[in-house]
């Protein structure tokens, strides 16, 4: 797969999962992963997902306009928030057969 198509497919999967079932993001992170959210550094998949599921909103929708910026619409809020996010993707080792 072409890297741009792969990045786009990954992003659609990531934000769709974020918007519908944040816990489902757990299998996209590992213990060596780090999330920096508004300056706060969070290490490891379980801590990252705990953070993402602890947000004070239940429903949201991301609309992504380019590879590193987009809008976040929170249910009940009138105006969307602009966001930028960098995701560094590493190859996942294949399962032992």
């Amino acid at each position, binding site marked *: 797969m072409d890297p741009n198509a792969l990045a786009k497919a990954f992003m659609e999967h990531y934000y769709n999962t974020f918007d519908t079932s944040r816990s489902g993001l757990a299998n996209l992170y590992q213990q060596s992963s780090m999330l*920096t959210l508004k300056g706060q550094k969070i290490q490891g998949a379980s801590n990252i997902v705990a953070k993402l599921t602890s947000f004070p909103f239940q429903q949201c929708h991301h609309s992504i*306009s*380019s*590879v*590193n*910026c987009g809008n976040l619409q929170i249910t009940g809020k009138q105006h969307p928030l*602009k966001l*930028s996010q*960098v995701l*560094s993707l590493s190859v996942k080792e294949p399962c032992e057969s």
Partner: protein
Amino acid sequence: MDPDALAKAFVEHYYSTFDTNRNGLANLYQEGSMLTFEGQKIQGASSIVAKLTSLPFQQCHHSISTVDCQPSGVNAGMLVFVSGNLQLAGEQHTLKFSQMFHLIPTPQGSYYVLNDIFRLNYA
């Protein structure tokens, strides 16, 4: 040096050089480096600097709002993610931008930019 302090020092150096002498950015890139500038991919230090020096403005000023850095997990590199405002000479309003740098250590003990992604943030 603490990684956050190092990232901040790099960012100050990069944008100060960009704003005063874009050619001086050449030694921060190598032939393996890639810049994606507003979706256009540019490979190699000389092509990157040619692009940056061909932008349709002579003078600009970057003011930095946020700098985040993390270890990149490969080759002792560092990911640096910047957001800020870009003021072009003669323009009244600033443009919002975000930029990501993937920095790799050099044998000489400094860092070079392996990956660089720049976007203006509008819409």
